[in-house]
């Protein structure tokens, strides 16, 4: 499978190891305190910052360590890895392993791109920790209280770097805007009693509460003021002193002293949510009921994100993950599916209104003699919509409505029929793609379900089959194989689920692929067909054949080993098919060179792991089988 190019890639990645210790590749951490600058990306620089918690599909880098990728240093891949901190080493190794792994399966495209998943899935505890870390950092660097740091960060949408920049540029201005005072503006040292500015009652000084400004209010008025603000929503995070001339911020410390447990909890939730929602690096997972968030580092690669809840989504548009299809296409497709107009098109294309009662009537097949449903019961000719009574010998026979023919010749029905015909064609086209899109979605959901049944308790909560045994456990007992050796089954199912997702979206892609781009379309349909056929064999094998080994008692262990080889092979082959498909679509099928297709092997077709080999297979595409894989 490895082309020469790919082998070079792997070697190049190995050679990067040497760079770790060379002087020029070490970039000093210039601003230890200010790693908030990870908000800013340059086109050719990627910084990966994530948290301790290892999450699926993420690079683990402990902040403030960074991996910096810059273009233009290493010839073949245009990637140089700079190490900020020596202890980042294990992460780099993981990164390289990953890259090497990808090198084996991905074919090279014209502009090599990194396929690193640069995101972290955050649990609520992670979010609190990150928020706490940022707050502490700002608090330490600016020498202000944590509450003040939190207010400041909230004001700056949790961008540590912006806080730092503005603060050190003009501290007074920032303090004024955000409402952080260092000295109170109101003093009443010699008064025995002070009047609350809201209820106008007088209280002894020790019963009066003030924010940093010193404006006096009693605790019950404070309580009312804060509660209303919390009830009104997340605006309470920006709460200020009630005095209209004063802008002093009211922080969480004061709120926690004054309000009910319930309101404290609400406030704290708003604060947590704000950290995700007001921060452009993070988003909540859109799956219903999911409480994870995702921290995403923009710059390179795909937007697809796999949440720990198993839901995969696109970080850019938050729709379900749809790589290799673009967000715009997905939006259009989803809107089209929703659009009521498709129904209207169908009615228009497939029905005519009864000439008498005007109800739409669908004609499946058969003769032109229509009878409307009771109570109307009107009998008419489908072609001319005239009453059937008037049909007969004199109109040229019941089954050859010459009145229609005459009318058609005169052009009476032309426009109307033409529109109907066009609508019908466009609807059939849409239905073709929609059916396949929807069927793959259904298959995918079924596969997810099946996988859950397969998985052991170690992977998921105990989803037992109706016999009360996990299927994998059964296989372990039966063929005396440890569970680790049955991982190939899980891998197969994961591959199926992923492929169903990709395949599904390729139908949306196909629908929007311009009709006139004939060569692209052919190439697309060929790749899609290859991938689909491979997937069908894999799915069939994982679904039906596996079942035999689970249910029947009389299967020799050797047969099961053969099955293992087959399923593993199918998984790997299907994976390759889909990677090719994904790559081709992500390139916008750019490798199909309109001028050279069909006449020569160009550099671009070569990049698909040998164009000639593919074309050879293309001839046998109809049979839907790959001889090397059929047993």
């Amino acid at each position, binding site marked *: 499978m490895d082309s020469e190019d790919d082998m070079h890639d792997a070697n190049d990645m190995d050679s990067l190891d040497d760079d770790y210790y060379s002087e020029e590749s070490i970039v000093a951490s210039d601003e230890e305190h200010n790693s908030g600058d990870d908000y800013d990306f340059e086109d050719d620089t990627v910084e990966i910052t994530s948290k301790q918690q290892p999450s699926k599909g993420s690079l683990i880098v402990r902040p403030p360590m960074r991996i910096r990728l810059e273009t233009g240093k290493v010839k073949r891949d245009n990637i140089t890895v700079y190490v900020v901190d020596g202890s980042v080493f294990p992460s780099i190794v993981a990164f390289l392993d990953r890259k090497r792994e990808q090198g084996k399966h991905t074919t090279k495209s014209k502009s090599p791109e990194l396929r690193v998943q640069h995101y972290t899935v955050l649990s609520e505890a992670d979010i609190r920790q990150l928020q706490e870390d940022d707050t502490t950092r700002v608090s330490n660097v600016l020498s202000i209280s944590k509450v003040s740091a939190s207010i400041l960060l909230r004001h700056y949408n949790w961008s540590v770097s912006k806080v730092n920049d503005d603060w050190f540029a003009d501290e007074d201005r920032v303090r004024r805007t955000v409402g952080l005072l260092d000295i109170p503006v109101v003093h009443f040292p010699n008064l025995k009693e002070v009047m609350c*500015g*809201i*209820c*106008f*009652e007088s209280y002894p000084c020790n019963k009066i509460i003030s924010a940093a400004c010193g*404006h006096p*209010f009693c605790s019950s*008025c404070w309580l*009312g*003021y804060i509660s*209303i603000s919390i009830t009104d929503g997340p605006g309470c995070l920006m709460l200020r002193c*009630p*005095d*209209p001339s004063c802008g002093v911020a009211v922080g969480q410390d004061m709120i926690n002293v004054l309000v009910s447990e319930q309101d404290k909890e609400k406030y704290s939730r708003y604060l947590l949510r704000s950290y995700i929602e007001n921060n452009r690096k993070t988003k909540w997972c859109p799956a219903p009921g999911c409480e994870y968030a995702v921290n995403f580092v923009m710059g390179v690669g795909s937007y697809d994100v796999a949440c720990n809840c198993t839901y995969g989504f696109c970080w850019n548009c938050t729709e379900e993950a749809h790589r290799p299809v673009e967000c715009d296409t997905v939006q259009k497709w989803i809107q089209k599916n929703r659009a009521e107009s498709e129904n209207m098109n169908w009615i228009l294309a497939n029905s005519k209104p009864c000439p008498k009662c005007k109800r739409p009537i669908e004609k499946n097949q058969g003769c032109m003699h229509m009878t409307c449903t009771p109570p109307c019961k009107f009998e008419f000719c489908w072609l001319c919509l005239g009453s059937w009574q008037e049909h007969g010998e004199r109109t040229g026979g019941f089954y050859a409505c010459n009145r229609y023919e005459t009318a058609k010749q005169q052009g009476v029905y032309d426009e109307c029929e033409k529109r109907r015909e066009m609508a019908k064609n466009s609807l059939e086209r849409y239905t073709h793609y929609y059916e396949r899109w929807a069927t793959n979605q259904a298959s995918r959901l079924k596969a997810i379900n099946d996988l859950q049944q397969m998985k052991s308790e170690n992977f998921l909560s105990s989803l037992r089959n109706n016999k009360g045994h996990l299927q994998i456990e059964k296989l372990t007992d039966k063929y005396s194989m440890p569970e680790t050796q049955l991982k190939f089954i899980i891998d197969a199912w994961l591959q199926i689920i992923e492929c169903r997702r990709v395949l599904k979206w390729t139908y949306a892609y196909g629908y929007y692929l311009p009709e006139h781009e004939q060569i692209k379309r052919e190439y697309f349909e060929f790749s899609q067909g290859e991938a689909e056929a491979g997937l069908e064999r894999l799915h069939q094998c994982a679904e039906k054949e596996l079942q035999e080994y689970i249910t029947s008692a009389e299967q020799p262990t050797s047969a099961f080993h053969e099955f293992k080889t087959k399923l593993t092979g199918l998984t790997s082959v299907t994976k390759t098919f889909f990677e090719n498909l994904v790559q081709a679509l992500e390139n916008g099928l750019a490798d199909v060179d309109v001028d050279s297709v069909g006449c020569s092997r160009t550099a671009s077709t070569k990049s698909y792991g040998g164009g000639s080999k593919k074309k050879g297979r293309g001839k046998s595409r109809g049979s839907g089988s790959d001889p090397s894989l059929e047993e």
Partner: protein
Amino acid sequence: MANSNLPRRIIKETQRLLSEPAPGISASPSEENMRYFNVMILGPSQSPYEGGVFKLELFLPEEYPMASPKLGRICLDILKDKWSPALQIRTVLLSIQALLSAPNPDDPLSENVAKHWKANEAEAVETAKEWTRLYASGV
């Protein structure tokens, strides 16, 4: 009766409104409902509304002062999101009076009047004077 447990704040505010009225502003509670005020604002001098008497009705909702007084359709930020319980009836009425001195055609109640004002201020001022004379002079 609605007046029986009137908050002390409202009583104090009312007393002060009656004993030390702001210049050009009078506000007196209705006898049946102490939360309901009849307000009169004199058109500020040097404004087109000079000589006019503008009548308003003001109502203090149950949540007052946590919620703002209710005052009909007046586009004033402190009656909406900028309300603070530390503001008072007096401050609200003073703000309205100030609005008569410096109308804000960018946040109008009547789109037509605002357009007129922006297109030809002198003419609009004349209209305002005319309408003040016709509809807001005394009685």
